[in-house]
């Protein structure tokens, strides 16, 4: 039980919750405000992370140029997917986005010369050289740590990730308060009505898709910096479902519900590591990992059944239908 008392473990849980906040914020904008069923969010996270890492390792770019470009690539990918896919009915759109995320993972797994293949980013550089994309980031993190006089690298990361998350949350919160945000809600409630008022529904949807994808790209960069290494297996569809769960757990159509959902989810997911009382303690470590995901699955089902408006959701504004 000593892990429970370890500050760096809880800092880690907090960092992951912050990254999920940014990832899920994109979904909140897309589904909670605009009604788009994007089930491929993890693909844009992968594009952001890989875009940044590839530019740094292969093209020797500065991280501070590579990361924005990775984020831009994620946003552009959202646009490119949206142009054909948004013509489809919403249920078809959901399936096509899942398929897109799997295709991105397939490509990342199989195009070794571009992504390092299934070995992950370690194989990005020349043969026999373990590639690193985070040299500049580690120096930056050390500088921040010195400035703020923080105790450890984990706490520093926690501060940086949450600072970024809060800035992004405020930006989205401000954006949905503008007339632009009201059009999004109008599209969510009744697309035809919004169109009949002269609003270009497709253009709004494309903007939202691109912004949400770019947010996922940002989450991807932080993910890459947090873990020093990643591979296509890090971008399983499961991650998209975690993000969905966070949005629904927090409450639909509420910006500030996203961090609440992410923190609750982070503690739930981390907390299930401590399910080591009998009879669960008789299970092996691998088996307990299965039990954790069973718990997550049951929580998703339970939420849908019992509290479709989430923790902070307003029942009269937006309920899962």
């Amino acid at each position, binding site marked *: 039980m000593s892990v429970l008392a370890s500050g760096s473990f809880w800092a880690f849980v907090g960092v992951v919750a912050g990254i999920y906040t940014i990832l899920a914020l994109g979904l909140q904008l897309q589904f909670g405000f605009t009604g788009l069923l994007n089930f491929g969010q993890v693909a844009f996270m992968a594009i952001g992370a890989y875009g940044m890492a590839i530019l740094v390792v292969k093209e020797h770019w500065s991280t501070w140029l590579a990361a924005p470009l990775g984020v831009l690539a994620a946003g552009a990918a959202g646009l490119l997917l949206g142009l*054909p896919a948004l013509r489809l009915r919403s249920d078809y759109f959901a399936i096509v986005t899942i398929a897109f995320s799997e295709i991105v993972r397939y490509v990342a797994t199989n195009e070794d010369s571009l992504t390092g293949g299934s070995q992950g980013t370690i194989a990005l550089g020349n043969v026999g050289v373990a590639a690193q994309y985070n040299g500049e980031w580690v120096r930056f993190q050390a500088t921040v740590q010195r400035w703020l006089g923080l105790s450890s690298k984990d706490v520093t990361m926690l501060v940086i990730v949450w600072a970024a998350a809060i800035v992004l949350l405020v930006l989205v919160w401000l954006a949905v308060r503008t007339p632009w945000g009201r059009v999004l809600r109008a599209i969510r409630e009744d697309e035809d009505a919004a169109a009949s008022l002269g609003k270009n529904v497709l253009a709004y949807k494309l903007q939202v898709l691109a912004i949400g994808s770019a947010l996922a790209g940002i989450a991807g960069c932080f993910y890459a910096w947090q873990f020093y290494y990643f591979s296509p297996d890090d971008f399983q569809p499961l991650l998209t479902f975690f993000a969905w769960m966070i949005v629904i757990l927090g409450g639909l159509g509420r910006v500030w519900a996203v961090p609440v959902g992410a923190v609750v989810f982070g503690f739930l997911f981390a907390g299930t590591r401590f399910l080591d009382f009998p009879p669960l303690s008789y299970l092996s470590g691998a088996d307990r990992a299965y039990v954790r995901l069973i718990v997550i*699955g049951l929580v998703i089902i339970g939420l*849908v059944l019992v509290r479709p408006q989430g923790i902070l959701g307003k029942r009269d504004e937006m309920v899962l239908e």
Partner: protein
Amino acid sequence: MFWQLVANGLVTGSVIAIAAVGVSLVYGILRLVNFAYGDFMAFGALAAYAFNGPLGLGMIPATLLGMLATAVLSLVLDLVLWRPLRARRAGFMSLFLASIGLALVLRQVLLLAYGPQPQAYNVNQYKVYVIGSVRLSEPQLITILGAAAAIGAIGVFLSRSTVGRTMRALADDRSLAAIAGIDVGRVITYTWLLSGLLAGLAGVFAGLVQSSFDPNFGFQLLLPVFAAVVLGGIGSAYGALAGGLVLGLAMELSTWQSLFGGVNPVYKPVVAFAILAAALMVRPQGLFGRARVV
């Protein structure tokens, strides 16, 4: 080489087609995109494995028992999960998310029960049948014959039997069917039963063709199955059959060397989706789906 790829395509395609009918029927009647269907298939494959491997039954009784087990699972889940959600008038989104949660739970339960190591049926993998220029392994031959029989039976069932026709009527227009005196509750039960049987059958065939499989393999099968359902037009059972066969053939033929050198076989699922994307550009409602009439 061409005919060999056609034969492989028919094997892959018929597995996809059988599963796609199971997904499509449930979608048509319950408006539920069942994301857990891949894991239903894995459940069927592993249940049949339990009878075939450890218990030593022949492949045919093991398959039938695996199908039965999957159908029972399907019915129990209707009782404890889908019926309460229907009573709440849950919409597309709730049902889809619930099925995602269910997929997680099912897959992890299978992993707990069977572990992550690959399993294989007790059939002769190395026996080869040569028909003209085509070579088929015993599992492939069993699959192609079994699937042909199953697809024929599904076709007859949907077009001739009362239950099959009421299912299609319900998928077409639920309120009209209800007014015409169809017992909706009963048809829903039959739909889950049939969908479960088909999941079990498709799972066993997929396990046979792949020669070894683990509890995760259902999810990998799910995407081509969804592609077939969408290609055929969501909710159209005949469309799903056709979509599955078309995609199976296309996936295998895309690797043909004489066709611009052929596609790397690892990209077969990508080919399925490229075809789907192209087809949807032309017919956004799917090949057999009806255009939306407001």
